[in-house]
C-alpha cells in the first residue's frame, strides 16, 4: 500500500495466458520481489489485445499500460504475437505522434520460464512511469458541463 498522500503509479498489464501470465506466476512462486503497482489482466494471447483496451485504460486514468506476450516464434497460437507486433508498432508510433508520452504504453515479451525477467520488467516499467508522473493526456475528467453550471445559477 502506498503511504497516504504519496502518489503511486497505477499500471495495467495485459499478459498472455501461456507465457507472460505464467512468467508472473513463476516470479510469485519463486518469491521474487517486484513493485506492487501493476494490476494484471489475463488475456488468451497478446493478439487478443485491442487498441481499444489500451486507450480505454488510459482514458479511465491508469498511469501506464504494459502488454506482454510470448516471444516471437513461441506463440501458443503460432502467429498471434506476430500479428500483435505489427498492430502495436503502429499504435505506439501513432500515440507518440499524438503527443502521448513514450513510456506510457509499453510492450514486451516474457516466457513462462522467465520469472526473473518479469520482475525486472515490472521494475523498469514502474520506474519509468513514476518518472513521468500521473497521466493527464487522454484522461477523461468528470464532466463539468454547461448543464451543471447553469443549473447552479
Amino acid at each position, binding site marked *: 500500500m502506498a503511504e497516504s498522500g504519496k502518489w503511486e503509479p497505477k499500471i495495467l498489464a495485459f499478459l498472455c495466458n501461456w507465457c507472460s501470465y505464467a512468467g508472473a506466476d513463476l516470479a510469485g512462486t519463486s518469491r521474487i520481489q517486484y513493485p506492487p503497482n501493476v494490476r494484471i489482466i489475463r488475456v488468451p494471447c497478446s493478439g487478443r489485445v485491442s487498441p481499444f483496451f489500451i*486507450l480505454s485504460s488510459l482514458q479511465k486514468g491508469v498511469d501506464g499500460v504494459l502488454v506482454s506476450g510470448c516471444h516471437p516464434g513461441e506463440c501458443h497460437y503460432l502467429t498471434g504475437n506476430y500479428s500483435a507486433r505489427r498492430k502495436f*508498432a503502429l499504435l505506439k508510433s*501513432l500515440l507518440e505522434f499524438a503527443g502521448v508520452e513514450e513510456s506510457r504504453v509499453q510492450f*514486451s515479451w516474457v516466457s513462462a520460464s522467465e520469472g526473473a525477467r518479469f520482475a525486472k520488467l515490472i521494475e523498469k516499467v514502474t520506474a519509468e512511469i513514476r518518472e513521468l508522473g500521473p497521466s493527464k493526456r487522454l484522461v477523461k*475528467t468528470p464532466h463539468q458541463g454547461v448543464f451543471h453550471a447553469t443549473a447552479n445559477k
Partner: protein
Amino acid sequence: MQQLTNEIRAIARKLLREKKVEVVIGFERGSMPLRSRPCFIRKEEEVNRLFWDGFCENALAVYLPKRKERAAIVAKGCDSRAVVELIKEKQVQRDRVILIGVPCRGMVDRSRIESSAAPRRILEMREIEDTLILRGTDFEETLKRSEFLHESCKTCTHPNPVLHDVLVSEWLEEKNEDPFADIQTFDALTAEERWDYLNKEVDKCIRCYACRNACPLCYCPECFVDASLPQWIGKSIDSSDTMIFHLMRAYHLAGRCVSCGACERACPVGVDIRKLNRKLVKDVKDLFGYEAGLNLEQTSPLATFRPDDTESFIVNP
C-alpha cells in the same frame, strides 16, 4: 474539360446501351458555381447529365459496397485505389464493377477560391486547361488552377487510375515520391506541442461522423463509434472522447487509407484529419513497405506479418 465530359458521356452511353451496367456513377454539374455533385445515371437519355471539371472531389467508391446492381464508376486515381482495397477486402466484386478511369490533375479547393474572391460573390466559373475564369456581377478574374488544389491532391503521387477498364483522356506523368515533409516537420515538434496542436484541432470536432461517411474504406455494418456493447468510446464532445475517436478512426484505416482526402473535405469544421492518417500511411510504408490500393495481389499489412518485423519498440529489461 468539355472534351473529358464528352468522352465520359460517350462511354456511359455505350455501357448503358449494351446493358453492360445498370448504373453509371459519376458527377453532374451542381446547382451552384464551383460545385459538382455525384450522380447516378440509369437511363441512356440521362447520360448528358454527366459532367467533369476540377470540382469532382467526392470519393465515388463510397457508393460501391453493398450495391446489388452492376455499376460503372468514374474513377480518378484515388477512387481506383479505393476500389482496389474494396476488392481486396471482398466488399466489391471485380466482375461487377467497370472503372472508367480518368487521370486526374488534382481537384480544386472551392473554399480557397471563394476566400480569394471574397467579399465578391462568384456567379459563374469556367475552366480552361490550367486557368479558372471567375465571373461575378461586377468582376471577372482569371486564376491559376494548380495554385488552388486540395492539400490531398498536392501530395498525390498516383494521379492515374491504377485499375481501369476504359481510360478517358491521356496518361499523366506520375509525380515523385511523397516525401511526407509535413509529417516530418510535425514529428520534429516536442510532444507537448504536438499534443496541444492535435487537441486544438479535435476540439473543433462536433462528432458528426461526416469524415467516416465520406470515407470509401469505412463500410463496417456497425461502426465502433455506434457500438454500445461494449461501448469503447464515449459519444460526447469531451476532448478525451474526441481525441480517442480520431486516433481510432485513423488507426482503423492503417494500411487501408488511400489518401483520397475525402474525410478532410467532408469535415464541416475544418479539423486537420489527415495529419493522423498520413502519419500511419508513412509508418505502414516505412515499416511494412506497403502502399494501399496499388495492387490487387499484395496482402494487407495488418493481415500478415514477417518474422523479422520491427522489434525496436519492444522493452527488454
